[in-house]
C-alpha cells in the first residue's frame, strides 16, 4: 500500500489515529477519517483521476467541493454503484471502492485519447456539419457516438436503499454555514426564531475551514466556528443540517434541501433513509452560499496539477495534504499570495507568483518579497508542459492591456499550478428564486440584484470578500429577518476579526500566449465538456451570439458541474469576442437543482407498493377468499369474474350472466363515485350540471343524468337521488369520481360562488351490494322487513330507507342490467357483513356473485353505454341516440352552448349503433375499425370503431356496439371490420340486443 507521501506530519482536520483503507482503480491506498476521496488521493500523490469527455485528456482534481468539473468517480459496485460523483465531495470511509470513468482500458492508457490526435476535426458543433452522408448511415454513426458519450455507468439492478421526503416550516432558512450563515443563524437563533441552517459539507465553517490566517475574537477562526455551532446546537428551535445541500428555490419561499444521511458511512442503516429531501416553507431566507473561485484561462490549463488556488490551500490547511512541493501561483488578486504563504509555511518551495496585475502593491506583496518568493508582475502563463502531471509552465510579461506579450518566455518548473482568478458569488439559488442578477464591473462578478422572494444574500454570495463584513452582514440579516417576522431581536456582538484583504482583482479572461487562440494548445473554459476559448469564438463567428446559443452550440456549462467554474469565464470571453460588455451577452438562467440530486430522493417513499394507492372495497376479503380475478379500474381493484374450478374466463362470465337473468346474482358496486350534495340550491345546481331537468324530482326518487363538458361532449353519467328537498345523493362512474368532484367544485367555487351548495365525497362511506335477477325481490324480502318491496310501493327509480340484515340501509331500485334489481347501500364497515348475509340468505336461491365482466355483458345486452368505453370525450348524447336526455326547455346547463354548434348536428357524425357479425359465434375485437369498402391494403377510409363487444348468452350470439359515421341511418347495411389477416362483414343494427320491451325490469 502506497504511503501518504504528500501528507504533512501534522495539521489539518483529519484524524491521524483513524487510518482508512480504500481502493482507486483497484489500487489499495490509505487515508484518514476526515478526508475526502480527493484529499486522500492527493495525499497519495494521485493527480490523474479522470479523462475528459470529448478529447479524453488526462485530468486531475481542480477544486475542493461541489464546483469540481474533472474528478468524477464511479463509486461502489453492482446495485449500489453510483456514477459521476465528485471526488471532492466523497467522504472517505473504510473499504471505499472508487473507479475512474470514461477511459478504456485504463486511466493511464486510454484508447479514446486518439480523439485528441484528431482534435482539429472536432471543433465545437462539428457533429452538426457532418455524419449526414449517406443518410442511412446516421444510425450507425449515432451508435458509435452514443457509446463514446456518457460518463459513468448506471447501477445494475434495483436500488436497495430507501429515501424519504420531509416537510418542514421555519421562520428563517439559512443556506450555507460559513461565517455569514453562522452569524445569521446565531442572530436569528438567539432571538428565539425557528431556524434551519443547512450546509452541504460535513462540517460547518465554510471557507474558514480552509484558511489558517484568519482569527476571530483573537483565536483561530475554526475555534469561533466550534463555539457558534455549540451554541446553536443548544437552541431547541434551531435545526442544523450537515451534508445538506439547499438545491432548489421555488415560489413563495419553498425550498428543497437534499440531505445525504448515510452516504459518508459507506453502508446504509436499517433505521434511517439513505437520503432525505427536505421541503421547507420558510418565512424568510438568508442565502449565505459563499463564492466559487474562477480558474484562469491560459494555454493547456487543464493538466493534472493545475488547480484552483483556494483548493490547493484548502487541501494543505484543512487536510494536511501538500498537493505539490513546487507550486506555481498564478493570480489576479491578493488571495493567491495567501495560498503561496500557506504552502511555504508547510515546506513547499514556491516556484513563483505570476501576478496578472502590472503593479501589485500591498502588505501581501511585500511579504512575498520578504519571504524571498519571486513575484512576476504583469506576467501571463503562455504554455504548460507535462503529460499525466504538470511539470513546468512558460511565462512571459504582458502588454499593459493584457492582450499580448511584451517580452520573451521563461520556463518555471512546478508540480502544481494554483490559479486565483477571483471569485464568483454563488448566486444560483438567488437566481432560481427569480431574483434579478446584476453585473458588477468593479468586482467583475454577477451579484444579487432585485429580490423576488422574502430573501437576502450575505457574505461571499453577495460579493463580500472579507470575513469581518460577512459576519457583520450575517448578524444584520439574521436580526432583520426575525424582526420582519415580529420577533424581538437580540443582537450578538460582532467579534473582532483579523484577516488579509483580497486586494484589487484584475479580471483577465483570456491569458495571452505566443500563439493566437485556437492555433496551438487549448485554452479550456469548461473542463468537463472540453470547451475551449477557441470553441466559444468559433460559435460567435458562426452567429451563435446569445449566450444561450453559445452554451448549446459549444455545450459550455452543460456538464454535471453545471458550469460552476466556467460560466462567467465563458460569458466574458464571448463578450470580448463580440466586443460587448458581459451583461450585454446575457446571463444564463440557473435551474434547480443546485447540484445534481438523486432521483430516488425526489421519489421518496412513493415507490413500490406505495407508488399509487390501491383501493379496495369492504367486500374485498370475500372476493379474495372466493377466488375472484381482479381488474384495475382507476385506483380500484374490482372483482372481474369468479371462476369455478376448471372454468374458462368465457364459461365463468356466461354462467354469471345467465344466473343474473334467471335467478339472483350479486355485484359489489361499492366503487361507484358517490357525492353527497346539500344546500338550498342543490336542485338548481343539478339542473345546471346535468343535461336533463331536476327541479321536479320528488323526494325518494332517482334519475339518470349525463354531464357534458363545455364542448357538449359526454363527460360522466350516473344516477342521482333526492333524499330531501335540499339533499341529494349523486353517483358517478368509478373512474370518473375524482374528476367529477373536482369539476363540480371548480364550478361552485369559480363560476357560481353565490350558490348554496355543499359537496362531500362519500364514495368511501358507503358499501354497495347490487342484487339483480327475477329472484332478487324474494331474497331481499328475507332480509328486510321494514320496506314494502312491491312494485307499486317501491317503484323503479325510487329509494327507500330501511334495514337490511339488521343493518341500516339505503335501498335504491335502479338497474344497470335490465333485470329487477336493488342496490343496497350500507355504511362501509357493514359492507362485508351485508355481503355475507346476502350470500347466506340466497344460498337456496342459487345466489351467484358476478364481476365487472358479466356486468359489462349484461348492460351491453341492453344497449346501456359505459362512459369511457363507448364514449371517449368526443361523443355527444345525440351521437348516442339519447336525445331524450337533453332538455330542450332548460335555459342553460354546462355544454348547452357547445352542443348547439352546427357540426354536432351533422348526420355524418360518428353515432352509436349495434353490429352483428354473420357468424354468431365470432366476437369482434374491441378497437377494430369499421370500413365501408375494403381495400387490399391500407390506407383505407374508416367509419369508426367497435367500442364494446361480447358474447351474449342471453341473445345466444355475439353482440357489439360501434361508433360509426352516419351510423343511425345505416341500420341494415353491411359494413366490414378489416383485421390483420381477415375481414369480418357486419350488419348495422340497433343497440338493444335483449328484452327490447324492457319487460323484465319489474321482475
Amino acid at each position: 500500500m502506497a504511503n501518504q507521501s504528500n501528507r504533512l506530519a501534522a495539521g489539518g482536520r483529519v484524524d491521524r489515529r483513524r487510518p482508512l483503507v480504500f481502493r482507486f482503480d483497484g489500487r489499495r491506498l490509505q487515508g484518514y477519517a476526515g478526508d475526502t476521496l480527493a484529499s486522500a488521493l492527493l495525499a497519495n500523490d494521485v493527480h490523474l483521476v479522470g479523462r475528459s469527455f470529448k478529447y479524453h485528456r488526462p485530468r486531475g482534481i481542480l477544486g475542493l467541493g461541489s464546483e469540481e468539473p474533472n474528478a468524477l468517480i464511479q463509486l461502489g459496485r453492482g446495485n449500489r454503484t453510483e456514477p459521476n460523483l465528485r471526488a471532492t465531495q466523497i467522504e472517505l470511509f473504510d473499504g471505499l471502492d472508487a473507479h475512474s470513468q470514461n477511459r478504456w482500458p485504463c486511466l493511464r492508457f486510454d484508447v479514446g485519447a486518439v480523439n485528441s490526435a484528431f482534435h482539429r476535426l472536432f471543433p465545437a458543433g462539428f457533429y452538426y456539419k457532418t455524419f449526414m452522408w449517406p443518410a442511412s448511415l446516421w444510425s450507425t454513426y449515432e451508435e458509435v457516438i452514443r457509446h463514446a458519450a456518457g460518463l459513468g455507468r448506471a447501477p445494475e439492478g434495483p436500488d436497495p436503499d430507501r429515501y424519504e421526503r420531509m416537510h418542514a416550516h421555519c421562520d428563517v432558512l439559512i443556506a450555507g454555514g460559513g461565517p455569514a450563515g453562522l452569524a445569521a443563524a446565531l442572530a436569528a437563533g438567539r432571538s428565539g426564531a425557528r431556524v434551519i441552517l443547512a450546509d452541504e459539507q460535513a462540517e460547518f465553517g465554510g471557507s474558514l475551514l480552509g484558511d489558517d490566517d484568519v482569527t476571530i475574537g483573537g483565536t483561530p477562526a475554526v475555534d469561533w466556528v466550534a463555539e457558534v455551532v455549540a451554541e446553536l446546537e443548544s437552541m431547541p428551535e434551531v435545526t442544523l443540517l450537515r451534508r445538506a445541500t439547499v438545491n432548489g428555490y421555488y415560489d413563495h419561499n419553498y425550498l428543497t434541501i437534499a440531505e445525504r444521511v448515510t452516504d459518508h458511512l459507506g453502508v446504509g442503516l436499517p433505521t434511517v433513509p439513505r437520503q432525505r429531501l427536505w421541503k421547507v416553507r420558510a418565512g424568510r431566507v438568508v442565502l449565505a452560499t459563499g463564492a466559487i473561485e474562477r480558474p484562469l484561462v491560459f494555454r493547456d490549463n487543464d493538466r493534472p496539477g493545475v488547480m484552483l488556488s483556494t483548493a490547493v490551500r484548502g487541501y494543505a490547511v484543512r487536510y494536511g495534504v501538500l498537493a505539490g512541493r513546487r507550486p506555481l501561483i498564478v493570480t489576479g488578486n491578493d488571495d493567491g499570495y495567501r495560498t503561496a504563504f500557506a504552502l511555504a509555511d508547510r515546506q513547499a518551495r514556491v516556484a513563483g507568483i505570476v501576478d496578472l496585475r502590472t503593479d501589485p502593491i500591498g502588505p501581501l506583496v511585500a511579504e512575498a518579497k520578504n519571504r524571498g518568493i519571486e513575484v512576476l508582475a504583469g506576467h501571463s502563463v503562455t504554455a504548460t508542459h507535462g503529460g499525466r502531471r504538470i511539470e513546468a509552465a512558460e511565462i512571459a510579461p504582458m502588454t499593459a492591456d493584457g492582450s499580448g506579450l511584451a517580452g520573451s518566455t521563461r520556463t518555471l518548473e512546478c508540480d502544481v499550478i494554483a490559479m486565483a482568478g477571483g471569485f464568483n458569488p454563488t448566486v444560483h439559488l438567488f437566481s432560481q428564486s427569480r431574483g434579478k442578477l446584476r453585473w458588477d464591473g468593479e468586482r467583475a462578478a454577477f451579484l444579487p440584484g432585485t429580490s423576488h422572494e422574502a430573501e437576502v444574500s450575505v457574505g461571499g454570495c453577495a460579493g463580500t470578500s472579507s470575513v469581518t463584513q460577512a459576519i457583520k452582514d450575517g448578524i444584520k440579516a439574521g436580526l432583520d429577518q426575525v424582526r420582519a417576522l415580529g420577533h424581538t431581536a437580540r443582537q450578538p456582538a460582532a467579534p473582532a476579526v483579523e484577516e488579509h484583504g483580497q486586494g484589487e482583482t484584475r479580471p483577465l479572461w483570456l491569458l495571452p500566449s505566443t500563439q493566437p487562440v485556437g492555433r496551438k494548445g487549448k485554452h479550456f473554459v469548461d473542463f468537463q465538456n472540453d470547451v475551449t476559448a477557441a470553441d466559444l469564438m468559433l460559435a460567435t463567428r458562426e452567429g451563435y451570439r446569445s449566450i444561450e446559443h453559445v452554451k448549446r452550440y459549444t455545450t459550455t456549462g452543460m456538464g454535471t458541474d453545471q458550469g460552476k467554474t466556467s460560466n462567467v469565464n465563458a460569458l466574458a470571453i464571448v463578450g470580448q469576442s463580440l466586443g460587448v460588455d458581459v451583461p450585454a451577452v446575457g446571463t444564463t438562467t440557473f435551474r434547480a437543482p443546485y447540484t445534481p440530486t438523486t432521483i430516488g430522493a425526489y421519489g421518496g417513499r412513493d415507490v413500490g407498493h406505495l407508488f399509487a394507492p390501491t383501493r379496495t372495497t369492504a367486500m374485498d376479503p370475500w372476493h379474495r377468499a372466493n377466488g375472484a380475478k381482479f381488474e384495475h379500474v382507476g385506483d380500484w381493484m374490482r372483482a372481474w369474474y369468479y371462476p369455478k374450478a376448471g372454468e374458462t374466463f368465457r364459461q365463468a362470465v356466461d354462467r354469471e350472466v345467465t344466473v343474473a337473468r334467471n335467478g339472483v346474482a350479486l355485484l359489489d358496486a361499492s366503487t361507484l363515485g358517490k357525492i353527497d350534495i346539500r344546500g338550498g340550491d342543490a336542485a338548481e345546481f343539478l339542473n345546471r350540471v346535468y343535461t336533463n331537468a331536476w327541479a321536479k324530482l320528488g323526494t325518494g326518487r332517482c334519475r339518470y343524468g349525463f354531464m357534458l363538458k363545455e364542448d357538449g361532449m359526454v363527460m360522466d353519467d350516473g344516477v342521482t337521488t333526492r333524499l330531501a328537498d335540499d339533499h341529494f345523493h349523486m353517483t358517478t362512474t368509478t373512474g370518473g369520481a375524482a374528476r367529477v368532484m373536482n369539476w363540480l367544485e371548480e364550478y361552485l367555487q369559480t363560476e357560481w360562488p353565490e350558490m348554496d351548495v355543499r359537496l362531500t365525497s362519500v364514495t368511501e362511506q358507503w358499501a354497495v351490494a347490487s342484487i339483480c335477477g327475477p329472484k332478487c325481490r324474494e331474497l331481499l324480502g328475507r332480509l328486510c322487513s321494514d320496506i314494502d318491496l312491491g312494485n307499486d310501493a317501491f317503484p323503479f327509480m325510487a329509494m327507500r330507507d330501511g334495514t337490511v340484515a339488521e343493518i341500516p340501509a339505503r335501498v335504491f331500485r335502479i338497474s344497470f342490467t335490465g333485470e329487477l334489481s336493488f342496490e343496497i347501500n350500507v355504511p362501509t364497515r357493514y359492507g362485508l357483513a351485508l355481503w355475507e348475509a346476502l350470500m347466506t340468505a340466497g344460498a337456496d336461491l342459487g345466489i351467484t356473485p358476478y364481476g365487472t365482466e358479466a356486468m359489462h355483458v349484461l348492460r351491453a345486452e341492453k344497449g346501456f353505454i359505459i362512459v369511457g368505453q363507448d364514449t371517449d370525450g368526443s361523443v355527444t348524447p345525440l351521437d348516442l341516440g339519447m336525445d331524450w336526455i337533453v332538455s330542450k326547455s332548460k335555459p342553460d346547463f354546462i355544454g348547452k352552448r357547445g352542443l348547439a354548434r352546427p357540426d354536432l348536428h351533422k348526420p355524418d357524425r360518428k353515432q352509436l349503433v349495434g353490429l352483428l357479425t354473420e357468424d354468431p359465434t365470432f366476437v369482434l375485437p374491441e378497437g377494430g375499425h369499421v370500413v365501408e369498402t375494403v381495400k387490399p391494403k391500407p390506407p383505407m377510409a374508416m367509419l369508426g370503431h367497435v367500442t364494446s363487444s361480447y358474447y351474449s348468452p342471453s341473445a345466444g350470439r355475439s353482440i357489439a356496439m360501434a361508433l360509426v359515421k352516419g351510423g343511425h341511418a345505416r341500420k341494415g347495411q353491411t359494413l366490414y371490420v378489416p383485421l390483420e389477416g381477415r375481414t369480418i362483414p357486419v350488419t348495422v343494427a340497433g343497440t338493444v340486443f335483449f328484452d327490447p320491451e324492457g319487460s323484465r325490469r319489474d321482475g
Partner: protein
Amino acid sequence: MAEAGRRRGPTGKPRYSILALARNALSYHENWQAAWRSPEPKPSYDAIVVGGGGHGLATAYYLASVHGIRNVAVLEKGWIGGGNTGRNTTIIRSNYLWDESAAIYEHALKLWEGLSQELNFNLMFSQRGVITLAHSEHELKEMRRRVEAIRLNGIDTEVLSTADVKKLVPIINTDQGIRHPVMGGFIQRRGGTARHDAVAWGYARAADDLGVDIIQNCEVTGFLKDGNGAIEGVETSRGTIRSKRIGCVAAGHSAVLADLAGFKLPIQARPLQALVSEPIKPVIDTVVMSNAVHMYISQSDKGELVLGAGTDSYNSYAQRGSLNIIEHQLAAACELYPIVSRLRVLRTWGGIVDTCPDASPIVSRTPVDGLYFNCGWGTGGFKATPGSGHVFADLMARDRPNPVAAPFTLERFKGGYLIDEHGAAGVAH
C-alpha cells in the same frame, strides 16, 4: 420532399461536410461563416413570421423554398429556438388516433426523413422507435383501437408483448405484481428523436441562405391595420415593420399576440416541465411513454436520460413549474426503471405550452385579413415542426388552407368539429 426543393441560396454559403471540416481545420476553423446573418430589420417585407421557434423558422424556409417568397423576416423576441423548441423532449412520432391528426403528423414525419440532408445540417434525427406502454386491461383495449386506426391509416405500428418490450428496453420493470404492470405496448419504429436546437439552427441557416432575414431581440408589441381592418404591419421593440402578410407562430404566447390583434384564442397557457439526468453510458435506446405511470423517457446522444411528464395544473407564463410534478414523475421513473433511482437529476426546466380545448393545433386564417396564426401545438408540437411550417407557409402564400391543415382552422371551435386528442391520446407528446 422533392417539392420542397434543394437549397440553392443566393448567398452561396459553403455546404457543411466532413471535407469542409477538414478544409477548415487547416485554417484553424477561423474562416467559417455565420450560419445566419443578423441584419437590421428592413422597413417592409413581403411576409413576416412572428416567432423564431422551429415552426416559425420552418414557415419562413418553406415560404422561400417552396413558394419563392424570399423577402421574409422572422421576428423573434429573444433568441431563435429559445421557446419550446429549445425546451422540449423531442419525441417524434405520427401514430395519432384521429385521421386528421395522423395526416398532419405523418406529413411532418415524412419531411423529417431526409431533412438533415435537405437543410445540410445534421439534426440528429434518430428513428430509434417510440414505444407506448399499456398497464391495464382498459389500456390494452385502448391500445388495440389506436393500433388499428394507425394501421388502417397506412402508418407503421407494431403491437408488443411484455416480453417484446423487455427485449427492447432491458431496464424496464416487467414484474407483473407491481401496481401498474407492463402488460404490453406498441411501437412506431419510424418514430424517435432529433436534436431540438439543431432544428431551429438548421432551418434558420437554410432560410437565411434563401434571403430570409432572421431578426432576434425583436419583440412584436402591436399590429397595424389599414382602413378595412386588414393587416399592414407590426410594431416591434425595434420599430415598425410593414407587411400585408403576417403569420404568428408564438406557441405559449399566442393568446397574448391574438389579444394585441383584437381577438381571442381558445388557448390555455400552462407550464410543462422536463428534466435530464447526469450523462451515463447507454441504457435505453428507444423512447418509452406510459400514460398510467405518467412519464416518458429516452436517452440523449450525450448520455443524459431525458424525462418528461404532464403539464402543471395552473395556468402561467412563468417558464417554471411546481416541484410536485417532478416528485411524481421521478417516483414513476423509479417504479418503471428501478436502476435510475441512484442516478441524479442534473437539470429541470419548464416551457409554456399552448393547449386548445381539444389538444389539437390551430393553423388558420383569423378575423384579421392577412393575419394568420399557427399555434396550439401544446405539449406535442416539436414532432410537427417541418409539417407545420410546410402547411402554414402554404396557407400564408395562397390564403387558402392546405388540405392537410384544413381541419385545424379556428372555425372548428364555432362549428364544433373538434379533433379531440385529449380524450383519446393519453400522454400527448
